[in-house]
């Protein structure tokens, strides 16, 4: 009885008693959710355009952040460092296309997937041998102060860095959405994602498109890396945290950009709420590590295509 009360009634009573705390938990969750969304976005871009599940996307985030921080530590201005890193990520996209994807074109998806695992390990080692394995703080002048927000039902504490990350992510997502919907290149990208053969027949060269997609994914990884690095410092654990994008993708659907964003927000907010209202009182905490994966598993049972993914219909 006691347990049932703790599961089904007490958490909601708590929420009603202290709405300010609920709001704080929710905001914190949504902010980390934005980070998951950014990483998931990189996965979706590549998966949509080339049907490849890029296991290395998480390492892309790390690698981009490492380069950015490394350059800044050498005394390069943040904006210049950003541009140089963008160049490095574009070069990386080129290299991946020429050295890995082209030789393997028309192979099974599983083989391409294995190749991306290879890319992941290579980049991780390569990054470490160049920049070393220390945790480096990112100082790009993102203000990190606590803001107090007075509301009708109490004071809410918001970290300005969280707020900043949220704004940047929202901006990035908007730019990408505009890019995909209103420019010829964006249209070409969506065309390739829809139907390779038809795209070829109207004269879209697939190879160039792949380079562009990987470069855009690199750009998204860079932004995610900086935001995350600013929060936690640039460390090798980043590539593991980035794997949280997997449950996000299962939730949102592998082929949907809005799905990646909303999936990220749901996972972020969900795990914080669960941790604070159910995890801590019932299980002693540390539920944030696995909560997202359990949700993903439940989704796989009942809605394997995700919230926004394309319905999997096979005609017999």
């Amino acid at each position: 009885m006691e347990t049932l009360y703790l599961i089904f009634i007490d958490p909601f009573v708590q929420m009603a008693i202290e709405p300010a705390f609920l709001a704080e938990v929710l905001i914190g969750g949504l902010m980390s959710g934005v980070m998951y969304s950014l990483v998931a976005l990189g996965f979706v871009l590549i998966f949509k355009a080339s049907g490849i599940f890029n296991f290395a996307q998480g390492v892309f985030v790390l690698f981009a952040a490492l380069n950015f921080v490394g350059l800044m530590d050498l005394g390069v201005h943040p904006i210049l460092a950003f541009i140089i890193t963008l160049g490095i990520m574009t070069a990386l996209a080129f290299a991946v296309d020429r050295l890995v994807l082209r030789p393997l074109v028309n192979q099974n998806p599983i083989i391409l997937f294995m190749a991306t695992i290879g890319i992941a390990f290579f980049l991780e080692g390569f990054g470490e041998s160049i920049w070393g394995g220390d945790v480096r703080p990112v100082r790009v002048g993102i203000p990190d102060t606590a803001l107090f927000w007075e509301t009708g039902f109490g004071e809410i504490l918001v970290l300005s860095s969280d707020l900043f990350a949220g704004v940047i992510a929202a901006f990035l997502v908007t730019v990408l959405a505009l890019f995909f919907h209103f420019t010829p290149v964006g249209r070409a990208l969506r065309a390739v994602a829809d139907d390779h053969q038809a795209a070829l027949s109207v004269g879209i060269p697939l190879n160039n498109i792949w380079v562009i997609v990987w470069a855009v994914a690199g750009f998204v990884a860079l932004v995610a890396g900086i935001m995350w690095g600013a929060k936690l410092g640039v460390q090798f654990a980043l590539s593991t945290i980035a794997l949280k994008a997997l449950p996000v993708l299962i939730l949102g659907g592998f082929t949907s950009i809005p799905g990646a964003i909303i999936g990220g927000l749901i996972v972020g907010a969900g795990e914080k709420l669960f941790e604070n209202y159910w995890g801590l009182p019932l299980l002693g905490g540390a539920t944030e590590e696995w909560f997202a994966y359990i949700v993903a598993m439940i989704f796989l049972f009942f809605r394997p295509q995700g919230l926004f993914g394309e319905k999997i219909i096979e005609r017999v």
Partner: protein
Amino acid sequence: MTRPGNILLGVKDISLRFGGVRALTDVSFDIHEGEIFAIIGPNGAGKSSMLNCINGFYHPQEGTITFRGQQRRRMRPYEAAAQGISRTFQNIALFRGMTTLENVMTGRMLKMQASFVEQALYLGRGKREEVAHREKVEEVIDFLEIQSIRKTPVGRLPYGLQKRVELARALAAEPELLLLDEPMAGMNVEEKEDMCRFVLSTNHELGTTIALIEHDMGVVMDLSDRVVVLDYGKKLAEGTPDEIRGNQEVIDAYLGVSHD
């Protein structure tokens, strides 16, 4: 009503194999400028393979394809598109997530000259181009009478209209040679009549040379200037619709005997 023009596309001794399967064996024919050319034959005769060779999806092991006097080897599909060959597919290959308008716009992809950055940022030349192409696309949309579905995602359109959008996308590229793979398959009589009208007016008003695959013999005989018949990957006959109708071999292999 054959209008003898220069040879636009010459196919010479084409052989195509997939492993041990011979899809095409020593097929030769010429498509002349301004004509409607039909490729017919039973299922599995190699008709679609032939179109796929012409637009570069397949590379025949032997033989040559000459387009506008230029012989080519191992051409890629986007190169064929750039040279003025557009096509539609047997199973509609539209970009299902996009609207009619966006689908037709992709047909203009190759005509866009602005650099990637200009396009991406929608600046200067990129913007002017987009506007100019949009005008051309609206012309095509008017021509094929699909104004009312401009903003509809094509996945939601009925089959007949999807086929028409696919034709619009191919026409937006202003092709010299238009390849139609079963443009009327699965259509009802009314839709077929519409499609015939569009194929004819494309040919007459825009002067586009058309090569088409079709199973409806009534349609083929009405539309085409000349017909080639394939069977088991080999050329069985070539000639005007009347000649084909009277050809005994073709009747045996494909048309069948009329019992009247």
